[in-house]
């Protein structure tokens, strides 16, 4: 964490009072995050300045997700409140999951599609009350939602800036929250949420996240943002709470095999050509398409695809170590592993034929495996299929063996379990 004594020496020859100017949006937590960000490395996330890593390297932040507790500002998520007598029926028509069975306090992860069954976005649907839901998304969806709600008795509010959100992820996340909230989280199940208070501040906590670990997301009125941040940081110290940026998150989500819009797939609404569009079946989330429920957007096309089979599959692959190491040894180099997650499309071959491409990957420090998410032609997507992964060693392209493996790569028991 920020150590005044260090900064004093490092900035010795300059003033340590600095101001900066930005055209980007600032989250209500920025007053804290900007001061904690020692690297001053930022990424854009939905037009917000979002910390890439707080420390000079993301390593400690990555490990805090897996062994301690990582605190992430996830305010940039798009959020919409759907409220009214038709809210449930509407959402059920909008998304592929069965929202009719979603209970108050339940959260569902779901994709949604266009009429051709091609995925537009994915996010979570939270049932906040009998007739009130919140849906989160990676890209703006207000127009799509409004367009499809025509004639229904409900209101749609863009909640993106009216609700601030934090994610607290990692094995110690529950212990920290139990210390600061007025209720116990011990019985809160995976993908459920509850309203509670944090020092009299009303918040809601969902047991959700983007890391594949035990973790929670905290939703609040932005006016309480700083108080919530301070309280968590204060009480979390002895549990190793660590402000965490997007580099670490990206690695964790790949380990958890969670797809990312604009990286692993393109929204059907923004795809320039049809080839870029994918269905949920092709993105490894066919389980979230409930064909038995009543009509929903894209159902006919998805039914057809379900019967006829999909052209593509999203799979996990593992790049084989020994061969990789050999490529580098030949050059007199130690094995070169990506330090952070990469997101540049990388060809995958079988024999002379390109059968797919990996869209994001990383070396997993916790699993000690080089893993990636890949789009593969369905014929070449069976678990155990051997592929060749294109690797650049010292400027030269090489092919190195990879294999289709089970996902999620990392799936700890604690993600779903409750304390006994």
């Amino acid at each position: 964490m920020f150590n005044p004594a260090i900064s004093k020496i490092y900035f010795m020859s300059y003033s340590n009072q600095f101001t900066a100017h930005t055209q980007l949006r600032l989250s209500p937590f920025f007053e804290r995050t900007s001061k904690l960000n020692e690297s001053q490395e930022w990424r854009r996330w939905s037009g917000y300045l979002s910390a890439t890593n707080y420390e000079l390297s993301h390593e400690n932040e990555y490990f805090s997700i897996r062994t301690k507790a990582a605190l992430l500002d996830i305010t940039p998520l798009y959020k919409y409140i759907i409220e009214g007598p038709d809210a449930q029926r509407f959402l059920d028509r909008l998304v592929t999951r069965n929202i009719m069975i979603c209970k108050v306090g339940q959260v569902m992860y779901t994709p949604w599609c266009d009429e051709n069954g091609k995925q537009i976005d994915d996010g979570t649907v939270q049932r906040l009350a009998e007739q009130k839901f919140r849906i989160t998304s990676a890209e703006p969806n207000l127009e799509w939602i409004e367009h499809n709600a025509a004639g229904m008795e409900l209101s749609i509010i863009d909640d993106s800036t009216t609700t601030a959100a934090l994610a607290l992820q990692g094995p110690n996340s529950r212990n920290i929250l139990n210390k600061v909230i007025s209720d116990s989280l011990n019985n809160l199940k995976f993908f459920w949420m509850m309203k509670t208070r944090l020092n009299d501040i009303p918040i809601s906590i969902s047991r959700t996240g983007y890391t594949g670990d035990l973790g929670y997301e905290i939703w609040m009125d932005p006016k309480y943002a700083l108080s919530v941040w301070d309280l968590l940081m204060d009480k979390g110290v002895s549990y190793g709470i660590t402000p965490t940026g997007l580099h670490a998150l990206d690695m964790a989500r790949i380990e958890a095999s969670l797809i990312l819009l604009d990286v692993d797939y393109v929204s059907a609404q923004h795809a320039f050509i049809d080839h870029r569009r994918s269905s949920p079946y092709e993105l490894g989330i066919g389980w979230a398409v409930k064909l038995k429920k009543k009509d929903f957007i894209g159902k006919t096309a998805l039914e057809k695809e379900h019967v006829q089979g999909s052209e593509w599959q999203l799979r996990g692959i593992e790049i084989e170590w020994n061969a990789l190491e050999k490529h580098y040894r030949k050059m007199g180099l130690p094995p070169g592993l990506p330090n952070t997650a990469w997101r540049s499309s990388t060809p995958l071959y079988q024999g002379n034929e390109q059968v797919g491409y990996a869209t994001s990957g990383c070396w997993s420090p916790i699993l000690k495996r080089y893993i990636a998410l890949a789009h593969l032609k369905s014929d070449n997507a069976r678990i155990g299929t051997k592929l060749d992964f294109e690797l650049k060693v010292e400027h030269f392209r090489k092919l190195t063996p990879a294999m289709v493996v089970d996902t999620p790569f990392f799936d700890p028991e604690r993600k779903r379990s409750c304390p006994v």
Partner: protein
Amino acid sequence: MPSVAQYDAIVIGGGHNGLTAAAYLSRAGKKVLVLERRHVLGGAAVTEEIFPGFKFSVCSYVVSLMKANVIRELMLPKFGLELLPLESTFTPLNNDYLLRTADHDQTYREIYRHSPRDAEAYERFGPLMSQIGMAVRPILETIPPNAIRPSLSDLSATKKLLDHFKTLSTEQFEYLVKLMTMSSADFLDEWFEFDPLKATMSASGIIGTFMGPRSPGSAYVMLHHYMGDIDGAFRSWGFQRGGTGAVSAAIARSAEHFGADIMTEAAVEKVTVKNGKAIGVTLENGDQFDSTKVISGMDPKLTFLKMLNEKDLPSDFVTSIKNFRIRGSSGKVNLALDGLPDFTCLPGNGPHLRGAISISPSLEYIEKAYDDAKYGNFSRSPYIDIIIPSVLDPDMAPPGKHVMSCFVQYAPYNINGGWNDDKREDFGDAVINALAQYAPNIKDIILHRQILTPADLESTFGLSEGNIFHGELSLQQLFIMRPAVKWADYRTPIRNYFQCGSGTHPGGGITGSPGEMAAKKILKEW
């Protein structure tokens, strides 16, 4: 009636190398039994809750040399291996400090503060050491050939190594020879001028060794500590979540997954030898187990001089083992703390507490610490290598509390007058006083302390003379000489009796390497 069971292989000692050997043998389909004297597995790689709520990596405390192929082949991450980076080294000084971190710019600027010249030399030094590490790696991965009567495969292995050495550049060769022969202080003097930097770097040349930074040969030990790699990157240290015992536990779970039987509180009394062949073991409680092969994970002294009768061994071999240098030189102080130490030179919490903290203000300081030991005393102002595991892994201590591991040198096994309770407390006091020089609040925050002298390391963990490496890593005790010429290939003069501990090639540290290579050698010739 003594129980009798038939095993393909019995491994004596559930230390991490014994467990590794057991896992590899089981993985090859052999029926394996591991016998551990203590109630916990891991040998010196063990985590114990010494005081309620406070967990300690009681002996060995960091991991770097764990071989990547062992991690993969035994599927250790699946069984609980979780290595966290330990990337900074903090050397507190009077009114100043030296803090080296994983960040290139930060470290450059920090060393520049003390010596602009060193800051640049440091940037060339790291890659050179990595290159030397790569150059030496093939030796580490070779089963030592029999230098006296090489077999065909020994000859081909030797040829491979020679071919490899032909590929080294003149510079690599020059530095390799220097590292094999020089003292760490002399070697570093060629590179750097800032004394605390040299002192801290030289310290890795004395760990586990009864040498000072000015003793010839200490540069090799420094290289040994440079050869670690994590995730393919040379030269990084790690901390196992849950302590080093969790590494052993992961290997044990892997061994069990492959079908090994593991027994604790099963102390072996003797290896049963019949017609020059090992045929099983007898436990201290009289139980007997038969097996085709017996493998010892203990150090050479125990493996040969305790487990066997001298008369069963060739006398020149007995002499070699008796001469094998295993002089313990270090102690361990484990502290349960009420809070974090507050260093005068860099107050408060910060990244400097998340890595190694090294009490090594100057070369002279360490050399003087060695002088005390040379004449049979523990160091009044010792070199201390500290980590605070609870900062990386809060589960090691109750919330808000901390555990601190202090590796201390020197504490000679053969101390004047012998070790006793008073001397142990004096030794502990000396360590805490040395710490208090830099972090005065330490005395106020100690809740409990555990002090381990070399004598304790011997009696509790079965490390002869308290030597953490099962024998010094000095040139005459490496590769084809470890632990004795002709018997460095994991075999012993007793047929079907093998060795797989740190006293064999490539030596100490949590590597899994001796266990792996012994198992592979055994399987090759099964």
